């Protein structure tokens, strides 16, 4: 694929590691500027804060690799959290049945997305935009716009401190990330997910059930969103009807920063995790540096653009030897 000269292998190295390099540069930068940044406590805080976006971004990555997208994740997170909290407290079901129904809600919304996209042939952007509105609306109907509090300790445990001093949400992220990585790299379904994104028609002709593959990624994305919503609910000790607004944008940003192509066919879990951590580290670090919030938004946007441009230039450079890149 590549000719073996030095420049090219250096570029290839950059291409594979650019996201991690950017993360490293940011980490070093903040460590130099803020004495509070590089402490165990603060790094755990960052991991905790990032886990919510990262969980959603993992599901998002799978949908994007198939050439789709899932805009409903933030609303699904809110709906799952609200139903779980409501049924666990005023519904009298208790924590675990509540959490289970919360997860099933995520699967249900994922099924709805899958059905619209596979059977209804609605483009993913439009279908999940619709389910984004539906899930948010259902959340407001169910909660009447009010937060649901009064969760007991078995529920709030999922947002709190876990084994080895590491917060439970971070443990959940580690498990989910590992499972998703394994799924993508070591199972036939993973292979098919990349194949569908690379070329849907070819994949279909090769005998793969494309509809089933698409259904799977939206189910997984719904499940990830629900998991994030449940953890956020546990972390806030209450279900908030307006949580997760804009969560889809952070998740997409994490995936794209991590090298996942919105055109489909390219991407992976380690990159997405690094992308999510770039976002998390920036939020935390800029707060520690006392940057005013308005300026923070500008800086975050600029870092995002630069990271994506860097990635694009490196890829273009790598693609040169074999002719003009199509993308």
């Amino acid at each position, binding site marked *: 694929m590549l000719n073996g000269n030095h420049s090219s292998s250096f570029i290839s190295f950059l291409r594979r590691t650019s996201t991690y390099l950017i993360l490293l540069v940011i980490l070093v930068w903040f460590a130099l500027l803020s004495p509070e940044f590089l402490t165990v406590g603060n790094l755990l*805080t960052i991991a905790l804060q990032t886990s919510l976006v990262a969980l959603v971004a993992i599901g998002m990555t799978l949908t994007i690799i198939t050439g789709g997208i899932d805009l409903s994740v933030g609303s699904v997170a809110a709906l799952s959290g609200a139903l779980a909290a409501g049924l666990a407290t005023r519904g009298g079901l208790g924590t675990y049945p509540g959490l289970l129904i919360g997860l099933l809600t995520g699967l249900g919304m994922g099924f709805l997305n899958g059905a619209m996209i596979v059977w209804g042939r609605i483009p993913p952007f439009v279908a999940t935009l619709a389910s984004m509105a539906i899930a948010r609306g259902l959340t407001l109907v169910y909660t009447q716009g009010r937060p649901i509090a009064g969760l007991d300790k078995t529920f709030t445990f999922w947002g709190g401190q876990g084994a080895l001093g590491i917060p439970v949400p971070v443990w959940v992220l580690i498990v989910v990330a590992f499972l998703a990585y394994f799924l993508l790299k070591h199972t036939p379904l993973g292979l098919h997910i990349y194949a569908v994104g690379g070329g849907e028609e070819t994949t279909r002709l090769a005998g793969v059930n494309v509809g089933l593959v698409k259904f799977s990624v939206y189910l997984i994305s719904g499940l990830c969103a629900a998991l994030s919503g449940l953890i956020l609910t546990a972390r806030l*000790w209450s279900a*908030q009807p307006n949580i997760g607004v804009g969560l889809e944008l952070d998740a997409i940003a994490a995936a794209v920063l991590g090298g996942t192509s919105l055109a489909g066919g390219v991407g992976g879990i380690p990159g997405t995790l690094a992308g999510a951590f770039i976002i998390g580290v920036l939020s935390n670090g800029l707060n520690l540096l006392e940057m005013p*919030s308005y300026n923070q938004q500008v*800086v975050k946007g600029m870092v995002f653009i630069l990271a994506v441009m860097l990635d694009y*230039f490196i890829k273009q*450079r790598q693609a040169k030897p074999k002719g003009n890149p199509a993308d």
Partner: protein
Amino acid sequence: MKRSIIYLLLAFVLVLAACTPAAQTATQAPQQGGEITLGLVISTLNNPFFVTLRDGAQKAADAAGVKLIVVDAQDDSAKMTAGIEDLINKKVSALLINPTDSDAVVPAIQKANEAGIPVFTVDRGSNGGTVVSHIASDNVAGGKMAAEFLCKAIGGKGNVVELQGIAGTSAARDRGQGFNEYMSASCKDAKIVAQQTADFNRDKGLKVFENILQAQPEIAGVFAHNDEMILGAIQAAEAAGRTGIVFVGFDAIDDAVQAVKDGKLAATVAQQPALMGQMAVETAVKYLKGEKVDASIPVPLNLVTKDTVK
């Protein structure tokens, strides 16, 4: 092409370098300020009310010679919690928190308690954790104030409409609660014929009230949870040619004060955000210097009517 990569990397480093001055002033400031650093976590800075509150707090901090770090939660409870955690790690002397929600803030306040950082709540309260003082104008009292005025202005009877704020916000809850409590207890002959949400929004206030005007041939008075909605309602009434309705709003924004002067709006309840921010900082500084402070610091509200408007 390789050069452009290097340029990009340079640009990247420059963006990060833009953060540096903030950090340098940060290390200089505490020496002048008697080492007091206050962290202010604000629910949103996309709303002029909270921007004014922040400005009031900043002025008071400058006057007292203390440093103030402001974090914007952007109306997101998760961002609020993260901001509070960041400031705890930053080891601020005290936290002034304007919560996005009174339940969602509880675990973050408990974290601050564990870290030994005193917490003050501003505008909205917390439903748990240890809070030294709560600094706020009493929205329930404001709703009552509005109801009392409206009741008198319509002669104690007639059909009344309530335009509600965004469902789930404590401002909408509390203002509505104060209003409805007074109306049902002390203004029994008036009847509330419509209660609809218009999301604190002028355009929605107009549309919602247009529909209510269609449904209700006789309306004596309207109370809206904020001025934007009441100004929308006034527009709707003018367009429909309906007169003799008493309008009462909340917040005393510039447009509303002008409408009071013009005689279109009967009254609006004024909160004083700058004073609230100022009192929050003053209370925290007092406490950190070892003085005693009250658990509840009420920030005065006032009713702006044609008689009191300046």
